[in-house]
């Protein structure tokens, strides 16, 4: 579907990281801004990091205005992206239910609901009876440790096929003449005075006028090479799938109080995710207690799954910022751009993130939607605090 070219000596733009965000950035740079003398370089294989490791949930019902803007842009782009790329992303707007299992959570989501409606997002609160109607397998017992009080519902949210997004973008940019270079690890950053001049890689030196780092959990290490410090830590986030069963749940359910979320793939596997491990980790192997915690929560929420066997379990290394919001924009090094810090919630943002980041790189100034997500917010105390709003689950 795409070539495997050798790297050229020089490009206008080099994007480091061929995950969803990097490929999307290249796609919009080529399509919208006409930049095709460009390479996307990747240490492993394209889409092999967190793009292929998430639970594929797409939603935009965040609390803060800047978050709503970027996630809703992204969600709306997902609606037509299969047609645009001529590649089936299996976007399935099956609805996302975020359970309210404490009075606190109920009130917090009500607040988010009001904020989202003011922004024109199609979301609403539903009562416990409607939750049961939408998800018949849910435990609606009043004796549950955390009884269902209702839910916050985004009917236009849903899921997509994660690998397909990476492959669709990769094929599209390859068609436009962009080089996707896999098995090519960045080992150093070339500087020329205060500006970036290219990258040193395992396949030689590649000079570039602009370099964009989009490497998720490994961003701090790459930015270190350029002498830029990042306010992030890398932790492991795990997910797992069960053996395939007949359809039992046709929406996404997120239970934030008990730390678990679940949907069912087209193959019939229940796709399960939870919270991150509690310490820095680059190993892509998560800890058992985190899995146990998630499963405990979901067995209580969905008693029907108690005897299911789990088929696969894996971990991805995510980059978590202090306010649980991403960092998109310019850096102090001229020509060096960064898009990272998506933490546990990057998949849903890929098309929107690529759109605004491409515009930022092409015009050398932050896109209006990207502007609030600049690095300077940590100095200015201008946080986009989604950690209080979304708890663990993104």
């Amino acid at each position, binding site marked *: 579907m795409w070539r495997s070219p050798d790297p050229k000596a020089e490009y206008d733009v080099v994007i480091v990281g061929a995950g969803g965000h990097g490929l999307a950035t290249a796609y919009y740079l080529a399509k919208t801004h006409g930049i095709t003398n460009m390479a996307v370089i990747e240490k492993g294989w394209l889409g092999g990091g967190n793009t292929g490791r998430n639970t594929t949930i797409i939603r935009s019902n965040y609390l803060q205005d800047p978050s709503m803007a970027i996630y809703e842009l992204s969600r709306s782009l997902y609606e037509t992206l299969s047609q645009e790329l001529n590649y089936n992303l299996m976007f399935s707007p099956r609805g996302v239910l975020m359970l309210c299992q404490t009075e606190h959570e109920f009130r917090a989501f009500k607040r988010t609901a009001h904020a989202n409606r003011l922004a024109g997002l199609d979301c609403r609160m539903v009562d416990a009876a409607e939750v049961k109607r939408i998800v018949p397998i849910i435990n609606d017992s009043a004796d549950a440790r955390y009884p269902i009080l209702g839910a916050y519902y985004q009917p236009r949210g849903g899921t997509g096929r994660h690998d397909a997004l990476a492959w669709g973008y990769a094929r599209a940019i390859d068609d436009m003449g962009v080089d996707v270079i896999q098995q090519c690890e960045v080992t150093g950053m070339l500087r020329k005075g205060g500006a970036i001049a290219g990258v040193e890689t395992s396949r030689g030196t590649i000079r570039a006028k602009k370099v964009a780092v989009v490497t998720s959990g490994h961003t701090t290490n790459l930015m270190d090479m350029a002498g830029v410090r990042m306010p992030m830590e890398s932790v492991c986030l795990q997910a797992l799938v069960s053996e395939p069963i007949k359809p039992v749940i046709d929406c996404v359910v997120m239970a934030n109080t008990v730390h678990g979320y679940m949907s069912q793939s087209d193959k019939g596997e229940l796709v399960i995710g939870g919270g991150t491990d509690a310490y*820095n980790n680059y190993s892509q192997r998560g800890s058992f207690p985190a899995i146990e915690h998630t499963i405990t929560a979901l067995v209580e929420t969905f008693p029907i799954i108690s005897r299911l066997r789990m088929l696969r379990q894996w971990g991805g290394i995510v980059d978590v910022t202090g306010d649980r919001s991403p960092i998109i924009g310019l850096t102090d090094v001229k020509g060096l751009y960064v898009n990272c810090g998506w933490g546990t919630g990057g998949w849903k943002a890929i098309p929107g993130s690529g759109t605004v980041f491409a515009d930022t790189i092409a015009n050398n100034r932050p896109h209006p939607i990207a502007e609030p997500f600049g690095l300077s917010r940590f100095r200015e105390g201008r946080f986009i605090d989604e950690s209080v709003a979304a708890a663990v689950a993104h």
Partner: protein
Amino acid sequence: MLTIHCPVCGVEGDETDFHCGGQAHIARPATTDPHTITDEQQRDYLFMRFNPRGLHFERWRCDRGCGKWFHAARDTNSLDFKAYYGITELPPAELMKQATGQWAEFFNAKTAGKTIKPAPKKAATSKTAKKVAGKTSKAGAKKS
């Protein structure tokens, strides 16, 4: 599953018996003259973190044992614990030598300013060192 050893009470347990408190050796920029602190310093204190792939230094708490905080050196790639040391101490000298990147810079700066060679048992964080200097005339005399 991590197996962790508490250097304070001596128990060994798994990671659910302990709590990771994040990066070690972060000093609050100012307690006495907050107006002299720049926005950058405050940002560094609150949000900037060393995030090495490899040897890392962290605070841990013996949650279900003695309840004390302590320091640990851990490899974030292999997840192996390399050393446990007291909450007021710097890491063993050989680990400070092995540290790379920002940690290497940090330990170099930390040990360069001191006339006394940092022995793991005697060395202290700057916070404790100040306290000791202020309280006991012996330490104060040595320093001046």
